[in-house]
């Protein structure tokens, strides 16, 4: 459903993601854990392009969300001047695969000097595959650690704003749907209230249904309970568990190991910008393979 191909993300000289790839199938509940600063948030944010990856591509089904990464396309590399020069220098003995490999490894491509063949191909690939980022985001819901409800809008307007603007439905329809969603989390009576009047748990539950109102195909959660007082964690996890039961595809960054075991179908352990482990949760918790994961678990469990 979503396929993340060899993502790198640098902030200036800081390298935060170092070659992350992931195939997400429909209905999967992927839980991501790992030490703070390991790049979990950045990884989620690359999936809906809140951050643009430095290298790599993100695809939603057959649609490309990011720009084209030339290093992922051998035919693009072959069309480049750099490849042409290196092949000419090698002469008779030229081995295309070896040259491509060297170009990839040493990051030799330079957009400015790759010639018209290369540019044409890049443009064509982009045209054929790229999906407008706003359309892609409509299919990918996101829930933030800090809730991020719109402070200037009532709960009802928070939920209906995007559907009315983007889904071509009437205000009445959008509100009817919003009330259904509010019923689902037991907060119908808060429809006309501003976010400032709500508890953290209430805010986060509303943030979840706000995302659901767009009928996304997948939901990303970035530490949805980390900013909550302990007594409110349960109510938010309950909404997420219910959502999991409806078959929603979910990617959840969390420190709630209980939730990971109960709901997760796949557990990713991230450290220093890489996915070090990818296993069913039970397997992971019983016998983590890497030393980093063992150390991490001994600290948090």
């Amino acid at each position: 459903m979503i396929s993340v191909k060899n993502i790198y993300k640098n902030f200036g000289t800081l390298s935060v993601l170092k070659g992350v790839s992931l195939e997400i199938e429909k209905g999967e509940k992927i839980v991501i854990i790992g030490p703070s600063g390991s790049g979990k948030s950045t990884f989620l944010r690359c999936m809906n392009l809140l951050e643009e990856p430095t290298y790599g591509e993100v695809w939603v089904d057959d649609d490309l969300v990011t720009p084209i990464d030339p290093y992922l396309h051998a035919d693009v590399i072959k069309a480049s001047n750099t490849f042409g020069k290196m092949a000419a220098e090698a002469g008779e003995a030229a081995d295309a695969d070896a040259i491509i490999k060297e170009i990839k490894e040493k990051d030799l491509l330079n957009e400015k000097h790759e010639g018209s063949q290369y540019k044409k191909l890049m443009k064509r690939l982009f045209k054929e595959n790229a999906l407008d980022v706003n359309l892609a985001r409509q299919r990918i819901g996101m829930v933030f650690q800090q809730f991020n409800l719109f402070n200037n809008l009532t709960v009802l307007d928070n939920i209906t704003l995007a559907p009315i603007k983007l889904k071509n439905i009437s205000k009445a329809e959008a509100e009817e749907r919003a009330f259904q969603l509010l019923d689902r989390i037991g907060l119908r009576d808060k429809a006309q209230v501003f976010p400032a009047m709500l508890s953290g748990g209430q805010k986060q539950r509303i943030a979840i249904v706000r995302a659901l109102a767009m009928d996304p195909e997948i939901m990303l959660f970035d530490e949805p309970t980390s900013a909550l007082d302990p007594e409110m964690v349960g109510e938010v996890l309950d909404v997420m568990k219910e959502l999991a039961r409806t078959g929603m595809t979910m990617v959840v960054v969390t420190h709630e190991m209980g939730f990971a075991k109960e709901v997760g179908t796949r557990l990713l352990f991230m450290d220093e910008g890489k996915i070090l482990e990818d296993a069913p949760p039970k397997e992971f918790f019983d016998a983590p393979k890497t030393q980093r994961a063992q150390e991490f678990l001994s600290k948090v469990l």
Partner: protein
Amino acid sequence: MDFIGKFKKLWNALFIKGSGDGYMRVLTGLRNTVIIAVCGLLIGIVIGTLIAVVRVVPKTNRALRALDKLCTLYVAFFRGTPMVVQLLLGYFVLLPLMGVKLSSLMVCVLIFGLNSGAYVSEIMRSGLLSVDVGQTEAGRALGLSFSQTMTRIVVPQAVKNILPTLGNEFITLIKETSIVSFVGAVDLYSAFNYIGSANYEYMLPYLAMAVIYIIMVLGISGLIKLMERRLRKGDKR
């Protein structure tokens, strides 16, 4: 000093002498002052918001960077020269060069708007930056475009945060209107100046002018305070 005599003269100039065109002038001046300040601020808010948005968006391409430079220049010019100079340039240089005919009142409104745009852009920029980036990210993550997120979520919150400062800008504009007679527009100053010159008696007319300015400014300050309190009640954060 003969206060009674002076007062009589003012009274006559205002309401009796020359079929009472004194108080008509004062009213016209008052009306112009309000028109220039209100319209100037409205134009200023529109221009200022646009400039502020240009200045806070990530500069992803060359066009945006050029636009940003242009805005910087604009702000530097209008903040770096006296408004009288801008007014004179507009009325006596720009208009004739462009071959456009506008009333002096219109020119004042335009120049005040352009000038205010420079100041409002700085106010608005700090307002936009005061809105948590999480608000923008939540909007964009839902699939809303940059402009939809700005107009529905970020700008309304920014405006709320800067309302008191905008009120101060309005007061500044009200006070600045006392220069519009440089291009021949009637304002409070020129009205009372006319009354004073009618019988070479300036003391009370200028005193009256000061009183009217003070009353206006105090009134507006009061309104701003009221609005602030109202708004604060709305969000217990």
